[in-house]
């Protein structure tokens, strides 16, 4: 993981990314969360905040848009994960400022608190993308074998 210099003198990103499609079903919100935890964990990064943000964005797709959705995860630099959830409903989410006693509307509030940046945009196909950039801690990879000792 990291960057390698190119012959043009610019840095060339070799950060990983992954994408998966999910159905418009509550169980697929859970599946999307597990997928994100597995992917981001495999990048040796902390998964707590990503799991929560993915859950809230995926729940928005399933509960509000009520369409299948695509989850894309991309590492932007050593510690920032870009989460994008694309659904097939062009309606933009309403800004969430729930009162203390509100029983819903806290999903995007949580996203707002955990993400360094987030937003929504329409696509030319009439879809919508909810995205969030989440800064996550690096986790030491204790599983990496000490190859130099096995000579």
């Amino acid at each position, binding site marked *: 993981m990291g960057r390698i210099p190119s012959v043009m003198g610019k840095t060339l990103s070799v950060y990983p990314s992954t994408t998966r499609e999910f159905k418009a079903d*509550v*169980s697929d*919100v*859970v599946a999307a*969360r597990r997928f994100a935890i597995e992917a981001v964990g495999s990048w040796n990064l902390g998964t*707590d905040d990503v*799991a*929560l943000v993915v*859950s*809230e964005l995926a*729940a928005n797709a399933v*509960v509000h848009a009520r369409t299948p959705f695509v989850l894309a995860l991309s590492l932007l630099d050593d510690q920032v994960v870009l989460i994008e959830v694309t659904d097939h409903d062009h309606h933009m989410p309403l800004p969430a400022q729930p009162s*203390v*006693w*509100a*029983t*819903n*509307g*806290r*999903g995007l*509030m*949580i996203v707002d*608190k*955990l993400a360094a940046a987030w937003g929504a945009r329409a696509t030319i196909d009439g879809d919508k993308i909810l995205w969030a950039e989440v800064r996550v801690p690096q986790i030491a990879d204790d599983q990496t074998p000490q190859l130099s000792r096995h000579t």
Partner: protein
Amino acid sequence: MDETIQPVLEASGGPPVLVLDGELDLARAPSLQRAIDQLRADGHSTIVVDLLGVNFLDSTALGVLVAALARCREAGGDLHLIVAEPRILKVLEITGLAGTFPLHPTRTGTLFLAGEANGQ
């Protein structure tokens, strides 16, 4: 979801305790809602929700707890949360609800409720 969350009824006469574990999210929110509805229907206005074994809480499940808190207070009771997991405390804090629920770090912290539950 077919999950049934059974309350633990304290022999001491304290309020019923809902002991939850794992991921408490929108998939399990209906089960949590049913369990709380049943306790309310049984006449309990004070409920303890033990989240010590919960490692994930989303906004949907949190909404169920907030609604339950409001209903318990309307009935003259309260809804106590037992929380120690930093991830769960963080969700309560960033949603501004950490000061809304009575929070306890251990189950024994709610033993004082025994008399309160009997006195309704």
